[in-house]
């Protein structure tokens, strides 16, 4: 039978190391490091949109509705349905849709989770 407690040395060494936990969200919010290219919340540039409606047709989660405004058709993004796949940004011919690094997509009202 092997001697028990092989792990003790490592465990005791970790007692004196810095903890691996990041105390988010009450303290240390700035320690969260989000890399470039992270697929977060959608950001939409109305000026560039040409009204082709490709984004609405390609969205897997049916999270993009098309409404008519004074300049033509444009999309409305329902973030509460979005699955952050980035397909709409890929398919948009005018590059009007980008995915930002913002990931705290919670709100108390549905209106706060709609990007127009």
């Amino acid at each position: 039978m092997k001697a028990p407690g092989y792990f003790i040395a490592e465990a005791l060494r970790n007692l004196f190391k810095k903890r691996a936990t990041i105390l988010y969200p009450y303290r240390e919010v700035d320690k969260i490091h989000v890399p470039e290219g992270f697929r977060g919340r959608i950001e939409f540039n109305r000026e560039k949109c040409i009204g082709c409606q490709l984004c609405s047709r390609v969205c897997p989660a049916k999270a993009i509705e098309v409404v008519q405004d004074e300049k033509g058709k444009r999309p409305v993004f329902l973030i509460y349905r979005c699955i952050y796949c980035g397909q709409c940004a890929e398919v948009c011919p005018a590059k009007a849709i980008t995915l930002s690094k913002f990931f705290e997509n919670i709100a108390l009202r549905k209106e706060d989770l709609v990007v127009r």
Partner: protein
Amino acid sequence: MSFEVNIGPQHPIHVEPIMLDLKVEGELIVDVDVDVSYLHRGIEKGFEVRTYLQGLYLAERICGICNCAHTLCYCLNVEQLLGKDVPPRAKYLRLIVEELSRMHSHLLWLGHYFHTLGFETLFMYFWRDRERVMDMLELITGNRVTTAYNTIGGVRRDITSEIEAKLRKALDYLEERMKYYEKVIDNEPTILARTQDVGILKPSEAISLGAVGPHLRASGVKHDVRLDDPYSGHDEVPFNIVTYDSCDCYARVKVRLGEVVESINMIRYALDHLPSGEYRLKIPPFFKAPEGESLARVEAPRGELVHYSISNGGTSPYRYKVRTPTLANILSVVYMLKSRDGHEVYIADVPPILGGIDPCICCTARVTIVNGVNEARKILSLNELSRLYRERRR
């Protein structure tokens, strides 16, 4: 005197609901009944109403941990239907992310397994190291878990040299940690006492029960889809198949640890020999696939994953079928849990045995009941279904 204990459908060791009805006498298990239908979500029907590109994201969400394997299998399937072949750089990039996701899945399983054995410290350490793998996945693909990296025709992003440098550093760190964990598992008598000689499955029994993946390789059978049917550059990147001969839960732990080390070596080789060129074929988002059927196999972290589809010329598949590895492995769990003469199974052995196959029940439940006698398919309303269920369970 035996009485019934049910492990599930809600239980601390189950990540997803599965019902194991055990008949026990004291601590010995005498009989087992299993029910995996708690997580049926109608995914195969969901494929039929979505276009091929939208179906990719549905396939990704069949399982959170094996999401890379599901998207890879789906893309291979659709590319076979279209008759297209991806460029070589895309094959290597797909291999890199697939192996990273295999490492992530095995580290998650190792942590969870030791948690079910009661060794919480090792659980925390494995998951701390898994964070490094998820950071790498986030750098490469944009998200930690649902990576959405494979697309029909190739991959969606390229690897830059900064990402490659960070990836190599993370691989060095992980290799060192894996060597240390291997030593701990070999030398700690409480772990050896709980995993050795528990859940014996001889090679002939494993093959006849249809086991796949690391579960099969832990019984000494050298079977791997990457070797038999190389699908994404696996014929050019050399790797070893990790098997172990003792056919018990200890073997399963060793096989998966060995596979993590193998994945590290494969990623390093692929990074060194990455071919240049484009990484994606131009395929329009809406297309009509030609008529025909196609089948694709992939070595998911849990075993052999099969996607099969029939197309009748439209923008959505006519029929799509997914056979996941856990469905193939569940039968061997039922066999292993019963006490046979000479080999006793206790209630305390249920977590090591059930955990040993790496159950991913959300992949498993995808069955419909077809009345085989007169070929009629009966659609039950919710009330009828709940009445039938209550009558059976009484």
